[in-house]
């Protein structure tokens, strides 16, 4: 029994790793990619999404371009320092052969959900702008999708985009507030687990040796990402496992310890983008979120390596 998913994404080095991970996992059927700004401008992320489906013969998967900026706040575009202006580690790969869908990302999300009512898992791994727009355009979306698994947020700061905020939420806190409050089952795969799952240089080298199109692409774009992690966190060539963690959770949730917690999304001020857990239920009207708090890092890393190195 495969799980039908739609990935909303801003590729992005770790997005690329997550998408290839998903495409190479028999448990998952990727029904579409919707692109959003985030790690870089949406014109790049949409083209990168096309490249990723074409890389290993998945060009039948529709790709739609979505929001170019947050709902209300200005575009930060800080991700370019992490992923390169092209979102592909500054490698400027040749243009993809395929074409984007005529419809916008929010429409692709809605159409896909309507075509498979109750079956789709939405997997947003970028800012939540497209999902928020889809929710307003189709108020029945929470009934049409099975659940939502996001890479984003942090229950126990520090964050990576502010002292209290994770980048995807900080990029569009208003959209995140809409998505968290939509009344659907939402799992937060946040920094609490993604930063505990570290890909070391030795581990990465063991994947590189597979020498397939997926690993070749990943290792061409990875140096820029590794350099950022070294510059900011002094990781000496190691990287955190952000977006691939959402895919690992989908394939094997047992790798994560989760807790249902009320989580409030702050939209204003210095702490905008903070995902505040309320374990003592001291606030009313705060949505219950399934929060990943602990992870089995070797389990996640083994799973990722197995999928990326298989023929």
């Amino acid at each position: 029994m495969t799980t039908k998913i739609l990935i909303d994404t801003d590729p992005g080095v770790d997005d690329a790793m997550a998408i290839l991970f998903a495409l190479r996992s028999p448990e998952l059927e990727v029904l579409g990619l919707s692109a959003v700004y985030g790690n870089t401008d949406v014109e790049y992320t949409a083209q990168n999404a096309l490249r990723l489906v074409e890389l290993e013969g998945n060009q039948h998967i529709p790709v739609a371009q979505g929001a170019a900026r947050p709902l209300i706040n200005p575009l930060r575009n800080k991700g370019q320092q992490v992923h390169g202006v092209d979102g592909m580690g500054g490698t400027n790969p040749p243009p993809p052969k395929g074409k984007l869908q005529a419809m916008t990302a929010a429409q692709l999300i809605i159409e896909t959900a309507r075509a498979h009512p109750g079956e789709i898992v939405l997997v947003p791994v970028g800012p939540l702008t497209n999902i928020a727009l889809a929710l307003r355009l189709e108020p029945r979306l929470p009934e049409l999708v099975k659940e939502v698994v996001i890479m984003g947020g942090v229950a126990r700061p520090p964050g990576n985009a502010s002292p209290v905020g994770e980048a995807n939420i900080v990029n569009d806190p208003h959209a995140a507030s809409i998505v968290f409050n939509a009344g659907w089952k939402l799992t937060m795969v946040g920094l609490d687990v993604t930063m505990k799952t570290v890909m070391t240089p030795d581990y990465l080298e063991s994947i590189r040796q597979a020498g397939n199109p997926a690993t070749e692409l990943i290792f061409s774009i990875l140096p820029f990402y590794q350099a950022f992690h070294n510059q900011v966190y002094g990781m000496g060539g190691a990287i955190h496992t952000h977006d691939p963690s959402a895919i690992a959770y989908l394939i094997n949730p047992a790798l994560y310890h989760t807790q249902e917690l009320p989580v409030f999304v702050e939209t204003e001020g210095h702490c905008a983008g903070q995902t505040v857990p309320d374990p003592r239920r001291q606030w009313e009207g705060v949505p219950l979120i399934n929060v990943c708090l602990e992870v089995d890092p070797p389990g996640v890393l083994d799973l990722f390596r197995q999928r990326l190195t298989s023929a």
Partner: protein
Amino acid sequence: MRKFWIDTDTASDDAVAILMALRVPGISVEGISVVSGNVPVEMGFQNARYTVELCEKNTPVYLGLARPLLRQPSYAYFFHGPDGMGGMNYPPSKAPIETRPAVEALVEAVRAAPGEITLVTLGPLTNIAVALQIAPDLAQKIPMCYVMGGAAACLGNMTPAAEFNIWVDPEAARMVFHSGIPLLMVGWEHCRGAANLDQVNQAYVRSLHTLYADFTLDCNASAIKANQEWLGDPGLALPDPVTMAIALDPAVCTRRNKHFVDVEIHSELTRGMTVVDELGVLNQPANVEVCWAIDVARWKETLYQVLR
């Protein structure tokens, strides 16, 4: 033939504004998109459809967004009556129902006729904000957007600081104001005082003895009462028709200037306040034209000519 698109949360004064655009010669209304505002979107949809049928037109009416972007809906039954139409309980229109979503229909219409379709908004700006977010090119393809909303003089009706349309969805208003779309803000203050239809004006409208004149007064029965009891303003205030009059005849607006205008989204006290930097003290690029004064006689004549 000028092309219009009307975005509306159709209750009583919206209906009169729609009637004006449909009845005046030289205007082709390409579509009407309905949004949650005065009344729930389905009710506004029925009211808009009824108004189109009353005018014997085939103008497509599209169902739009059912709630504000972030805020909970709040309706204005207290002002417009339980059906939004003064309790007249008009029958549903028999016209075929458009199934295309309003935002999609608006985006397609504008892209099919770039630079040709003037937008007139009479409700909260949720539909327009979402349209501009999924299709930012619309900001360059709409030559002018006339917005009934806000209060440049800080004279609110929903709160002391805010006018209803902007207050209902301040985030949407902020998105639209900063989208780059050419925009004339017609504030709520321009329907008050001398711009009201006073007893004499109302008697004149009734004396016209036309279907449209009677409709204008009948569907606004609750509004007339609420305006007097709640705002202490005797007479019928018609914010949406004033805005429509300016869209139809820009000379109705006698003084307009472009300023930096922002919408308050953070505060509780001043939520939805339209902050106009009249003196330019913030040194920000001007983004919104503000209507500062109207020709009251000309506005009323613009209304009367479609009611006769």
